[in-house]
């Protein structure tokens, strides 16, 4: 069966510091991968998605970036964190056949101080 991992689970970072969040998927090949942010009272917002290695689409302009160095690895990064980057970051995967159901990881709680 497929599983999705995210780490770290929680992270406290100072403003201006860099960020790297990692997501890996097991048990499937060629998944679509997604990064969402869940801010308090605002639901989930799609940040990036990827349909293949090195292919990244951004939905929301911001100081975050994403990369997909391997088929089942998706990384969310920032060079300099802002206070507004605080939130709950969720990684998800789906199949490649048209639009498929998305399955979510456990998430990373990021607090920027």
């Amino acid at each position: 069966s497929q599983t999705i991992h995210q780490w770290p689970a929680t992270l406290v970072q100072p403003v201006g510091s860099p960020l790297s969040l990692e997501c890996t998927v097991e048990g499937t090949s060629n998944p679509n991968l997604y990064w969402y942010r869940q801010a308090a009272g605002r639901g989930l917002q799609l940040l990036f998605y990827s349909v293949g290695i090195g292919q990244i689409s951004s939905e929301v302009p911001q100081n975050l970036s994403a990369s997909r160095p391997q088929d089942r690895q998706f990384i969310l990064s920032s060079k300099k964190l802002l206070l507004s980057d605080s939130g709950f970051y969720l990684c998800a995967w789906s199949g490649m056949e048209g639009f498929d159901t998305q399955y979510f990881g456990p998430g990373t709680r990021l607090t920027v101080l």
Partner: protein
Amino acid sequence: AQSVSQHNHHVILSEAASLELGCNYSYGGTVNLFWYVQYPGQHLQLLLKYFSGDPLVKGIKGFEAEFIKSKFSFNLRKPSVQWSDTAEYFCAVSGSGAGSYQLTFGKGTKLSVIP
């Protein structure tokens, strides 16, 4: 742009009460519709989904939802809630065509079930 509106921010029910959570969407095309649930301390997980066919869909744990195209709605129902249904519920919509990668979520409804 697509959007999803969930009418209730927080719903409090006693056990055995019936549940209906409202969800309305805005999208200029054929849609796929989802309800996700997040139990305390757990992953966001799929409760049920509608892609096509019978507009009344059944999901896990006795939940069901009805797609009413004319009302742009996809309300979630359960005839008798249990304390274990305490969770946050999210409605989501996507386009159904190829390349429809964006899943748009509502802000969520927190359900508290009192024993």
